[in-house]
């Protein structure tokens, strides 16, 4: 059995959070995010350059000897909380988490050094709704030429490299060799695209079971870490709603003094407090699983299997819990703001769209519960 997980933040985490929040509020306030989602380039490549290049956050969880910062997924989770809080339109989840985890699993040193440094950006070419263990590849290989289409891929519009699963392998393809068609997305702060390959030149980076497990590891860690982004979204919604209810007067008193509303916010706070514990647990287990499977290191097979199993449970739990928590927070935010919360000019809708899309991403809560049931031996009726 794996050791107890530390669910707290340490000083480094808080320092990271402080720096990031300051940078984001300066460079990516919600008014800019709102303007950007209506512009032709929805992804903020300048902000991405700061995050990945200047701040070195793209390679946060990559070991130092492999070109990264040698921190852990626990700190990546802190970054995601802040990016969620700002609904920042950058491909951090897709490139620095999901694609990076896939490449770490394959031992693709050259490529993830590129990602870690922020020189390149990658995306795993699966629908954003795909859940670990349920991916059905829609692209086929003929030699090293790929053909097929993948719909609704996240963080791929800005990617330099696409990681493409086929029935029996995982390939790296230069994004320039694919046709990417942007999609009007429910969450325009994370715009999706359809990706078509027509005999695209590809390089095989994993084959057979190793390819399958690389995709599974990537989507599992993605799910575990997305929970922290959802906590960030939820916390913003709560904080903003509480502040609004302190300043809004109706019936001659602060709206926030009505017990009917206070109790809803107390329940929401309780839910978010729990979501945070669950998300911290998932991040800790993702870190354990990555540690137990560092490429090239002497891997204790039993420890690695245990760690992966526990990460999978923690990730499914986190998505089952934090998805609903973030959606509830965003829905309460819209409702408790009243009329202003229903307008385009108020940022609440950005958070609602992010929350609902994220709940569907990487497996909906009910699918996560079904997967969890199998893992913890609560068989279907």
């Amino acid at each position, binding site marked *: 059995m794996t050791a107890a997980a530390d*669910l707290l933040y340490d000083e480094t985490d808080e320092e990271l959070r402080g720096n990031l929040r300051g940078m984001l509020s300066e460079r990516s306030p919600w008014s800019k995010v709102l303007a950007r989602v209506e512009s032709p380039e929805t992804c903020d490549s300048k902000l991405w350059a700061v995050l990945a290049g200047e701040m070195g956050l793209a390679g946060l969880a990559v070991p130092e000897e492999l070109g990264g910062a040698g921190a852990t997924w626990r700190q990546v989770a802190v970054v995601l909380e802040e990016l969620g809080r700002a609904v920042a339109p950058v491909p951090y989840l897709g490139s620095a988490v999901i694609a990076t985890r896939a490449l770490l699993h394959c031992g693709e040193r050259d490529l993830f050094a590129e990602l870690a440094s922020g020189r390149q950006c990658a995306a795993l070419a699966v629908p954003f709704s795909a859940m670990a263990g349920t991916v059905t590849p829609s692209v086929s290989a003929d030699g090293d030429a790929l053909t097929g289409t993948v719909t609704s891929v996240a963080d791929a519009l800005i990617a330099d490299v696409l990681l493409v699963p086929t029935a029996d392998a995982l390939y790296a393809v230069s994004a320039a060799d694919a046709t990417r068609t942007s999609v009007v997305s429910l969450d325009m702060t994370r715009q999706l695209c359809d990706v078509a390959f027509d005999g695209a030149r590809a390089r095989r980076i994993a084959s057979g079971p190793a390819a399958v497990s690389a995709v599974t590891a990537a989507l599992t860690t993605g799910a575990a870490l997305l929970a922290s982004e959802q906590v960030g979204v939820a916390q913003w919604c709560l904080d903003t709603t509480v502040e609004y209810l*302190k300043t809004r007067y109706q019936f001659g008193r602060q709206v926030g003094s009505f017990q009917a509303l206070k109790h809803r916010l107390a329940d929401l*706070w309780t839910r978010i407090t729990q979501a945070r514990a669950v998300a*911290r647990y998932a991040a800790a287990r993702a870190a354990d699983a990555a540690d137990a499977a560092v490429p090239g290191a002497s891997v204790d097979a039993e420890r690695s299997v245990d760690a992966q199993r526990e990460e999978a449970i923690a990730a499914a739990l986190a998505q089952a819990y934090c998805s609903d928590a973030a959606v509830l927070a965003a829905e309460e935010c819209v409702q408790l703001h009243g009329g202003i919360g229903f307008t385009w000019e108020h940022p609440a809708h950005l958070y609602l769209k992010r929350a609902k899309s994220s709940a569907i991403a990487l497996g909906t809560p009910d699918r996560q*519960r079904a997967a969890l049931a199998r893992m913890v031996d*609560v068989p279907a009726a």
Partner: protein
Amino acid sequence: MTVAEPITAAVLQKLVAEFLAAHDPRAAADGGARLDFLRARFDAGLAWIHYPPGLGGLGAPRALQPVVDAEFAAAGAPDNRPGWNAIGLGMAAPTILRHGTDEQKHRFLRPLWTGEEIWCQLFSEPGAGSDLAGLGTRAVRDGDDWIINGQKVWTSLAHIARWAILVTRHDPNLPKHEGMTYFILDMHAPGVEVRPLRQITGESEFNEVFLTDVRLPDSLRLGAVGEGWTVARSTLMNERVSIGGGAIPREGGAIGVLANLWRDRPDVRTPGRHDDVMRAWVDAEAARLTATRFRQQLAAGEVGPDGSAVKLTFATLMQRIAGLELEMRGEESLRHEDWDLGRGRDVPFLNRIAGYRYLRSKGNSIEGGTSEILRNIISERVLGLPSEPRSDKDIPWKDLPR
């Protein structure tokens, strides 16, 4: 003890070892030897180490208490049976320590800690539950004494308690929060009558306590006349800290009973129930991790508000899980075991039948602060939302509508 060095775990282990060398823990299994051992432990400052020297402690960090307890347990030493004196240890003692006179501290804390004297809490009244400050039990000054009249309710342990902490109204002409005075009550005094209160499970864990012309010396007053509300609040603060419990493993609580029922009994499984069970599983695991995180915060010296979230969700979860189990068991659940449970049974909660757990858990969202009051506290103290406009704060207690 006079040490200049800081008290560390190693220092404490050495002190316990020295104590155990002088006091054979094995010989102290029962009877008088057991009490002598506990008294000596108190006098050595190894009882509650964060208390001051001379009052059972060393003025040491509270976080190191588990080190001391573990050493005593490992040596097979008798403990003070903390489960029997939860109110004394968790509520009366910190209140006496903070607000008591030196004489009161020296008289009460030692037999309290050793368990020689059990304590109960006379706070709630039929007319003052969530609004504790509305209580009406009267204390009237009579020379050096006070005469107490009133009725208290939901008093656990009153039938075995030697002493009680008591909040009264000494002046009905003052606004509610100002007219209160706090006492220690002798439960053996004439005029104290304890009656069992039967609850929805059929058993009587609690009591009603009737106080009729009970005479109380002024030396048993805790805090100044009129300071009752301040003192009561510090007692209740301790109540919130003491709820939470120890670390439990995954499926270690009621959810484990439910999950095992599902595993062992294919006949209870339906497709609809499957997702209900998994939703409960997810919420129970989230609650468990929240409690774990809260304990980690306490251990790191961060006293945050997360404990309120723990209590709030624990209550609803227990109710939901037991209710679900009751339905899953179908016909079996229509048949109950016993409604004549007297003072209750000494059976671990999770070993009780689902029907009992369903009913008993209804108390979880009422006792120790209702969930509604807890939501007020979270919204005001954690989120900083304003309180509802109130009309009861500034008028004399006697003029309040009731």
